Each structure stands twice: as C-alpha cells, then as structure tokens.
C-alpha cells in the first residue's frame, strides 16, 4: 500500500514536490523561530548570568543592561569614580569592576575596564574567562580581544589596534594617536564577549584626552611596567558588582537610591532580562502565530493537492476496486499519500532548518553575538513535528472521506 501510494505520488511528482516543499518551509519556519528565540535567550542569560548587579547612572533597566553587557545602544550619562569606590566597599559586595563604554573598533564595542573583569566575569553557567593567548593587560596601552575579533581581523598578541570613537560601525573621527597593543586573546565563550575589545581605563581615557601615550612602545627599556591598575579616571559608565552575600542586594539598592551625591540605578540582569523578554514576547508571539499560519496554509495546500487529483483519479480508483480494493483500502491509500507527503515535508524541513541555521549562524554571531545550536530536535520540537503530522492525518480525512464516498458510488462503472 505504501509502495503503491509512493508510486502514485511519484506519478504526480511535480505537484507533490511543491506540496512537500511548502510543508518543509513551514516546518523549518516553526522550528527556526523557536530555536532563534531559545538561543537568543540562552545566550543573553549566559552572558549576563555571572553579574549580580549593574550599577549605572539612573535609567531604564533594560537599556542599562543592553548597553553595558551587550554593547547595544549608547550608555548615556557617566557616573563618578567616587561612586565606584563607595560601592566596592559596601557590605556584601564581593567584587566590583568599573566599566567605560562608547567606543568601537571597526564597529565592535570597546570597553575600558580593569584586569578584575577577566577575573570575575562568568559566562555560560559559571565558566570564567580564559585566555587562549597572552594574558591580561600588561601596560596601560594593552588591549584584550574576544575570540571572534581575533579570527575576524587576524589579530594576535602583539597586533596594534587603532580605535574609532563612537559606537557605530562607520566613524569619521579616527584615534590614530592612541594605538593599543594586543596583550591577550580570550578563548571563545559563545557570547557577546567574543566580539568585544577591552582596554585599560587609562587607555580608554587617552582616546578622548588626545595626548600621545607615553609608552607607545611597550618594550622601551626604561618604561615602567605600569598596567594602569593605579589609574583613577574622573568618570566611568557603569560598575559590575558581584555579591558575597545575596541578601545584600536590597541594602545596596536602598543605599544607592538614598545617595545624595548621584542618581544611580542598581539593575539585576536577570530581572532586566525578564523585562526584555516581556517586551519582545509580543513580537515572538506574532512570529509564532505566523509560522503556525504558514503551516496550516501548507497543510491546506496538501488537502487541495489531494482533492484536486481525486476527479482525475476516479479511473484509477475504479480499476483498484475491480481488482479487489475496498473503498476502505482506497481511503487508506489517500491517507497514506498524505502522511507520506507530510513525512517527506518534515524531513526536508529539518534539512532546510539545519542548512539555514548553518548559513545564518555566522551572520547572527557577527551581529548579535550568539549562534543557534545545531543539536538534534529536542523533545519539544519532536512534539511540534508530531503535531504537524497529526494535523496532516486529520486534514487528509477530508479528501479520503470524499474518495470513500466516490468509490462507493462509482463502483466499477466510472465512465470517461
């Protein structure tokens, strides 16, 4: 029966192939949207997971999170260095890392920070940053780069970078006067860190101060090995805080909001992420609805294909009945054809999904700092595929019922 159904479909392979393709597209779309969403969320959570609090000039939580952790959007106002030193000694604070932002290198965000960043930053469920090459800052003109920046531009330890001011990819004002030398390359993390350039606080300030750095040549014999650790800038953009005591959060938040000196926000990344997802949730819902609509349309297309062929196939059914096929057998034939088309559609759809994920990943990773996992379908995805399959079986009942009635009424006497 299956064999016969396949042969019959092969006989109508053009239309059948189009139907398979439309089911494949809808399957790839449904799963693709889910994977994109899940990967984006997982990647954001991975990146922000190790930070307990982000302290920044008062503003919108989501915006602070995006601009500090993900380098998306501008960081707005600056905060005083004093505030950082105060936060660092607050009770319950385990570590605090100052951050300066707003520069880019060839379109990739540049962050001014201290060596403590590499020590304390955690990603992907608690993994610390590791150096694939070199080490943290050795002079104040050192730069540490993410794995992707290194491969993208062919940088290695010792390469000299020139930054451009502003967070855009096109920049008119080049800081030729403040070059940096790569002191370390981070191992890949699969997060936005791979696409970041880190420089010292002093180096970052130097970009803006416009003075020629003293130690342009790090190997100059008399240059003191000053890695900028002692440098105190006037202003910074944000502080990452790790708590030694989880319960300290409320106290710190209260202390900051009561502070007379400066208006600051203490953002919990996980809370801000939830806010972000509730914002994007509407768009995700719309996308999912759309992909379900496409799936329904493609299943309707299949019903149309099967139904349209019924009249042309009356003779085929009459012949089958004359050699002993019952109306039920022919009913089964139509359902089998529908299921074969759907199964093929699902398989082609999976192939399409993996092919398009493979080709989309470089773009996603370059623009958003995450990749979609090329793992086998999860249980939930299998559930979605099963649902498509069951809906197809249900939809096939319509033409199958018609053909059942038709073969009963026609018997063997169809006249052509």
């Amino acid at each position, binding site marked *: 029966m299956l064999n016969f159904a396949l*042969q019959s479909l*092969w006989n109508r392979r053009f239309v059948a192939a189009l139907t398979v393709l439309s089911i494949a597209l809808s399957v790839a779309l449904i799963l693709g949207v889910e994977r994109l969403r899940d990967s984006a969320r997982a990647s954001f959570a991975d990146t922000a997971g190790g930070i307990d609090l982000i302290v920044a000039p008062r503003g919108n939580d989501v915006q602070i999170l995006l601009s500090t952790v993900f380098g998306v959007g501008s960081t707005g106002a600056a905060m005083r260095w004093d505030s950082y030193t105060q936060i660092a000694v607050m009770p319950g604070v385990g570590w605090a890392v100052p951050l300066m932002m707003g520069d880019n290198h060839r379109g990739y965000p540049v962050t001014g920070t201290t060596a403590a960043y590499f020590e304390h930053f955690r990603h992907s469920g608690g993994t610390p940053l590791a150096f694939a090459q070199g080490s943290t800052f050795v002079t104040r003109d050192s730069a540490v780069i993410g794995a992707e920046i290194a491969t993208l531009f062919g940088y290695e330890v010792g390469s000299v970078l020139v930054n451009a001011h502003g967070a855009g990819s096109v920049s008119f004002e080049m800081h030729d006067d403040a070059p940096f030398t790569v002191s370390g390359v981070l191992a890949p993390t699969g997060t936005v860190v791979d696409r970041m350039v880190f420089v010292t606080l002093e180096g970052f300030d130097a970009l803006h101060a416009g003075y020629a750095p003293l130690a342009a040549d790090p190997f100059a014999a008399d240059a003191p090995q000053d890695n900028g650790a002692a440098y105190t800038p006037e202003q910074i953009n944000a502080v990452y805080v790790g708590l030694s005591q989880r319960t300290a959060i409320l106290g710190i938040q209260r202390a900051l909001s009561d502070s007379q000196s400066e208006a600051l926000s203490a953002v919990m990344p996980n809370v801000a992420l939830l806010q972000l997802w509730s914002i994007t949730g509407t768009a995700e819902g719309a996308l999912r609805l759309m992909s379900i609509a496409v799936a329904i349309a493609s299943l309707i297309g299949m019903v149309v294909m099967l139904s349209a062929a019924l009249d042309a196939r009356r003779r085929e059914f009459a*012949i*089958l009945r004359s*050699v*002993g*096929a*019952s109306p039920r057998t022919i009913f089964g034939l139509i359902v089998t054809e529908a299921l074969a088309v759907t199964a093929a559609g699902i398989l082609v759809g999976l192939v399409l999904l993996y092919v398009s994920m493979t080709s989309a990943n470089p773009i996603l990773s370059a623009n958003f700092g995450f990749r979609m996992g090329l793992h086998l379908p999860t249980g939930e995805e299998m559930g979605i595929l099963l649902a498509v399959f069951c809906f197809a079986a249900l939809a096939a009942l319509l033409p199958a019922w018609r053909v059942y009635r038709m073969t009963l009424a026609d018997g*063997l006497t169809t006249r*052509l």
Partner: protein
Amino acid sequence: MSTSSYNHSSGAAAGVEALAVAIADLRFNWSGATDQTLAIERFGLRTGERVLLRGPSGCGKSTLLAAMSGVVDVPAGTVRIAGTDVGALPQSHRDAFRVDHIGLIFQSFNLIPWLSVRDNVVLPCRFSAQRRQRLSGTPQDDAQKLLVALGIAEHSDTPAGNLSYGQQQRVAAARALIGTPDLILADEPTSALDPEAKDRFLSLLSREAAHSGAALLVVSHDPGLEHHFDRVIQMSEINAPKVDPC
C-alpha cells in the same frame, strides 16, 4: 434452494460446483428509477463455458455484469458465483470475493497508466490470497507467461499508458486471467479496437480462458465474433423486465 434449478441451458445435470454463475429470480431496479432494469428468471454459466452476450443499448447488460460482480446490491439467493451467494455477502466482503473469483475487463482505460504492464497484471495478486495461491510461480512469472501467450511480453516493463489500445486490452485480459479466477466478465472489451484487432483479441482471450478453465462472459455489439464462443445469448432471451405502463 435446489441446485438443479439453475441448470437452465444444458440438459446435463450439473451441480453447483459445475456452475460458474447461477442466477434465479433476479429483479433489479436502479435506485430512483421507476423502470425495472433486470428481471431474469434463470441464467447460468457452466465452469469453463464461453458465452457472448448481446443486446441493444440500455437493455441492462452492464447492469447484469455489475450484479454478478457484487458492485450493485442484489437480493440474497438470486446470484451465485462459484457456489457463493453474492447477495448474502456483507458489503465489506464483496470486494474480496470479487477479486478472489472474478476477472474484470472494461471497454477501455483498464490500466493504471503509470504502473508498468507487469505491475498492472499482478494487481489482483496484491489483493487476493486465493489468486496468489492458484499461481504456478511468482506473480511476476505468471504475469510474464500470460504476457507471452498474449503476445505483448516485450512490453512488460513499459508504463501501461504508453501502449496502444489493442495492447492495453490484452494487458487487461492478462490481469483478468492471472491466478485463474472462476469467471471472467468483459464489458465490450473490443469496442475501441479495429476489426482485425477485435478478432485477434477475442481469439487470444477465449483461448487463454479455455486454457485456465475460467468461464467467460463477454458483452459485445460487434458482429462476426460468434465463432470464439460456445454460446451466444440475446439479452432479450433471459431478461424480461416489466416496463412501467404509464
């Protein structure tokens, strides 16, 4: 019901076993039609007998064939094929019964065009264990033998749709014959063929039916084909429907 009462045309006292078809007191109306289509007192076909059925258009020949093959509902006790009361069979058994006992040939378009000639011929074996059991070899081997006998063996692997009408009818004959059913019913199998092809087709069909031992009932309007048959019957001889006198 006495078996001898079916013995209509022959003086020999043949039992049920010797009758491929036995019809008694068959009345049939198409649903919705006021006129009776069939009213047959007695009609029988002995095993292996070859009969040509004639009659004007619309007199119910195709309907009679449909009644024999269980396509239309007939009352229980009116139609027996190879000893089985077709009217008493539940609807769901009739398709299986048909393929087990009857080979059918239509006027034209007998074949599934995208299946190969050989695959068309073996179709009944897919659906009937009885037909498979009566084969002498594999379905493919038996099909090939029949195709050789009918002179179209060289087309075995061609899609059936590519053959000429005459060739297609011979493939249909091979399919009706495979697995030696008790009865072969052919409704105007030659009407799409030229006179020479008609004659050749019927002589092949008749010869192979005799060879397999199947009874053969052919409906045809064409003159000059009588010599292929044991008997020629006019529909009017057996069918006397009451016509609504309005």
